[in-house]
């Protein structure tokens, strides 16, 4: 079989397998899989409103995926995207509501605040890794909890004991009248352009700049990078900061687009963790992240329609969605293994 045929076949077969196994799960739970999948389809593509909402859901997934992928390409495993996204969310919402400025200043400032907050949240594990060799996985996981509870406390403080902040001023909002009219008043906002721009930014940094060359080299082999005169520590920290900034922007999408405020959370949003799967599905490439985020966002949003339209309990729905994603991921794993085997063979 040619390489091209494999490339085409692997994702198709994996999606079909996922759908089949998902159907079996629905069947043995006593539900109609056809009705279930029809509801899923309608939940994603049913009308203009759902399409708008699906794209809105994809937006933060793109940024969370970029964050994980960027760190990965630099040889780092950023599990802290969730926390970086949460602090970004808070920072954008706070800047959006605390001051009122002309839109050309206010909106970029609020977005920037999210990137800076996320970047800072990435800087700490980066610094600890570079200077003291503390593993970034441990630090980033802990930073997630710190982010969650710190922002909850801050929300309480800025809202005088309330559970959520005031909405952001219109001058800081990503809301789009144009999209609202186009998609039957879905919450689709201009943030999708920010996300797509960041896809370009990641591609540009990794594939066009000297910095990207260094980040990738350090990711592959720190010893050789040091030998070649690269500042390994600087590159580790910078990779985490940029990764965190992408994640922070993901938070800004929620703060300035979808919700236009921030409320205290009982638990994690899950977007940051799903970002890991998004990045891996996209094989850590910028373009791949768009694909991964689209799959994730669509399934996650479309699934919301399954309990209503097909009467399938949300628990079963989540299992079905997880199974589909699982099989898609496995397909990539299988292909990845095949490619690695091919490379190893070549090496011999």
């Amino acid at each position, binding site marked *: 079989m040619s390489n091209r045929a494999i490339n085409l076949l692997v994702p198709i077969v994996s999606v079909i397998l996922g759908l089949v196994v998902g159907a079996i799960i629905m069947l043995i739970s006593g539900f109609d899989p056809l009705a279930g999948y029809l509801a899923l389809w309608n939940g994603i593509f049913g009308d203009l409103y759902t399409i708008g909402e699906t794209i809105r859901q994809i937006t933060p997934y793109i940024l969370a995926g970029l964050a994980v992928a960027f760190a990965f390409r630099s040889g780092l495993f950023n599990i802290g995207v969730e926390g970086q996204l949460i602090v970004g969310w808070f920072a954008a919402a706070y800047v959006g509501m605390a001051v009122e400025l002309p839109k050309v200043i206010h909106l970029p400032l609020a977005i920037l605040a999210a990137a800076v907050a996320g970047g800072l949240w990435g800087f700490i594990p980066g610094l600890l890794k570079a200077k003291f060799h503390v593993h970034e996985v441990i630090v980033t996981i802990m930073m997630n909890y710190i982010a969650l509870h710190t922002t909850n406390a801050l929300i309480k403080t800025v809202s005088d004991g309330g559970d959520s902040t005031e909405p952001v001023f219109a001058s800081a909002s990503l809301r789009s009248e144009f999209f609202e009219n186009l998609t039957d008043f879905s919450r689709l906002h201009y943030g999708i352009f920010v996300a797509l721009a960041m896809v370009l930014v990641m591609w540009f940094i990794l594939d*066009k700049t*000297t910095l990207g060359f260094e980040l990738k*080299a350090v990711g592959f082999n720190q010893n*050789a990078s040091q*030998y070649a*005169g690269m500042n390994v520590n600087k590159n580790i920290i910078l990779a985490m900061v940029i990764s965190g900034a992408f994640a922070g922007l993901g938070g800004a999408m929620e703060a300035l687009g979808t919700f236009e405020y921030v409320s205290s959370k009982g638990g994690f949003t899950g977007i940051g963790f799903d970002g890991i799967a998004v990045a891996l599905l996209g094989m850590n490439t910028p373009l791949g992240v768009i694909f991964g985020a689209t799959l994730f966002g669509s399934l996650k949003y479309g699934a919301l329609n399954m309990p209503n339209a097909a009467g399938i309990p949300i628990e079963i729905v989540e299992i079905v969605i997880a199974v589909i994603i699982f099989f898609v991921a496995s397909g990539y794993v299988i292909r990845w293994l095949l490619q690695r085997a091919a490379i190893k063979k070549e090496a011999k």
Partner: protein
Amino acid sequence: MEYVIEMLNIRKEFGTFVANDNITLQLKKGEIHALLGENGAGKSTLMNVLFGLYQPEGGEIRVRGEKVNITDPNVANDLGIGMVHQHFMLVENFSVTENIILGSEPTKYGITNKKDAAKKVQALSEQYGLNVDPNAIIEDISVGMQQRVEILKTLYRGADILIFDEPTASLTPQEIVELIQIMKRLIAEGKSIILITHKLKEIMDVSDRVTVIRKGQGIGTVITSETNPDELAALMVGRQVEFKTNKGKASPKENILDVKGLTVEDYRGVEKVKNLSLNVRQGEIVGIAGIDGNGQTELIEAITGLRKVKSGTVSIHGKDITNLKPRRVTEAGVGHIPQDRHKHGLVLDFPIGHNISLQTYYKGPISKSGIIDYDKIEKKALEIIEAYDVRTQGPHTPARALSGGNQQKAIIGREVDRNPELLIAALPTRGLDVGAIEFIHSRLIEQRDNGKAVLLISFELDEVMNVSDRIAVIHDGEIVDVVLPEETTEQQLGLLMAGHHIRENNKADGLTKRGGDQHVE
């Protein structure tokens, strides 16, 4: 004479490529039979055929006179054929015994019976004089010891025909001597050995007969005692090989590298380089001879900025570079062929083209204001690949996919192309075959003849003697003496490397002194 293994007219094809063409190898019982060939000549392919990893397209294999069909390694095992791989197949954090029984764990009531296994390992170790502790953890023992574990593994599984694949590639000279003794002990205990190598000296030392293959063709089998290294090299390469490297007399000029009173500690804080002084001038090659682990690594790392200097100074052409960052050292005019090309020399997952620009990617003409021009990287790569005869499909091939010799040629191309004032070559020919070694030596001499300074670090006496204009012998972090190759014998050098002084009968000695400046006027 009885043959234990006969591989007759073996042919192995990979697509249109013929890796083995009509090769015959006959192993007598109780002999050490060397299989000699350049890198890529087809030695490993032939052995993989014998070991059942590949199926031959033609020819037949007989074991103890009977025609066999070795379909997979288990069949080879059952026939008593064991392979000691070049890259050890050991689990680092398992014990010796655990590694040996891995895959065929003996059980008692369903529980792994390590105690009995350890006893059996101990008994085998004593029988063959291997001196291995069955309970030691692999990562705690030396490379030489790990290799003995590999040998034990084959013996434990009942092998009486052992294949050694390039067994000395990663060993120190002492470990090589010990390995040779072990091989002789194995023969005395009734085993037969096939030794795959491209090192002529080893073949002359241990083997009874040699089968030579060249570019996949069987060239023939000769009796070791009736041949000599020159003949073997010619058979292997297909032309006469110059062992004594051709070079004119050095005409050294100004001082380039000046190391004064250098003291360097390793990561544990142990002094590995002790108050060492050394100089290298334009137009000369200074060889550092010494046994592995006597401070060579730390010395190079200190000069190149990879390791902090505790005291003393390093200067290049009068400019102090002590404790500068690696990039500043590079820019001061130092080229460095690192001793471990996989660890330091290359980013193996990068294309070879990227690796060729690993020292220059950040500045013009490749990079301008932080934007990298990959077309320029590719252009430079093609230039180096051409000039240094790097055999690769192209600049986009991952460095990992190149053979060791071609990886090394790419590194040398990269370093020499920058035209450094000082070229540091650390073990530049480690693991390479005669042809590649010849090429690399001639490049080092070319640098010298262009008026550059070259510092060569090597564990191989022949290399130091042939290539250097002056030899500084290092022992326990100190330069014990500086001698001239033409006035020193290998024996004298060996004694110096072991830390003995030979002041009374060395003519060069009057011109050198310990500790201070070591000029040979």
